[in-house]
């Protein structure tokens, strides 16, 4: 699969990202090649998404449950999670 092709991803949101968007999980068919492109695409949907995803510096992403860079490749990915910095421990 090349990044130019559409692929269907499970998108998960956590903490205040989830609360602002109002959804915990959704399926998205996208041609975004990176989490950065995916976030931009989602942010353009409506005001809720825009408010939740406006500050890229406050977001972290995981691709297939592994913490990843915003510019990592989404080729072959099945699950992308978008969330604030973690506060465990």
């Amino acid at each position, binding site marked *: 699969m090349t990044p130019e092709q559409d692929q269907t991803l499970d998108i*998960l949101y*956590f*903490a*205040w990202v*989830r609360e602002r968007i109002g959804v915990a999980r959704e399926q998205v068919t996208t041609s975004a090649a990176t989490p950065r492109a995916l976030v931009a695409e989602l942010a353009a949907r409506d005001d809720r998404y825009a408010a939740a995803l406006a500050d890229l510096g406050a977001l972290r992403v*995981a691709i297939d*449950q*592994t*913490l990843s860079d915003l510019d990592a490749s989404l080729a072959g990915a099945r699950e992308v*999670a978008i*969330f*604030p*910095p*973690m*506060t*465990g*421990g």
Partner: protein
Amino acid sequence: MARDICLLDGPFDPGAELTAFTAANPGAGGVVSFTGIVRDADTGGLQHMEIEHYPGMTEAALADIRARACARWPLSGALIVHRHGILRPGEVIMMVATAARHRADAFAAAEYLMDYLKSRAPFWKKEVTGNGAAWVSARDADEDALDRWDRPAQPA
């Protein structure tokens, strides 16, 4: 058999965990533990804390953090226990324990586990007070704490 990684949605007794962990590591000279406790919110009046996590990734992240510590120090054992869900003030949030022949290794590994749990395990804390709910912000100091593990060791 003592447990290595444990994700719980209810209370646990860190003392009982320490006793079991110590008994499971008879060859170690020392055991270090850290226990994190829900304290009152900085603004006061904490009613409860909610911890959200990412099922699936959480277990993998805890196992990965534990494996990195075991690869870096000669540990005879390492334990991570972490709660999610609703917690009351004074309740235990999580604990780590490390066992090693020499105490410096056990201390360093326990601090390493804590530093990575704070910023690299997918948990998010929300504090609920009489004035409403607020997500706990990540502290810059916690992110900075990770850097020390990338630097060469300080001369002793």
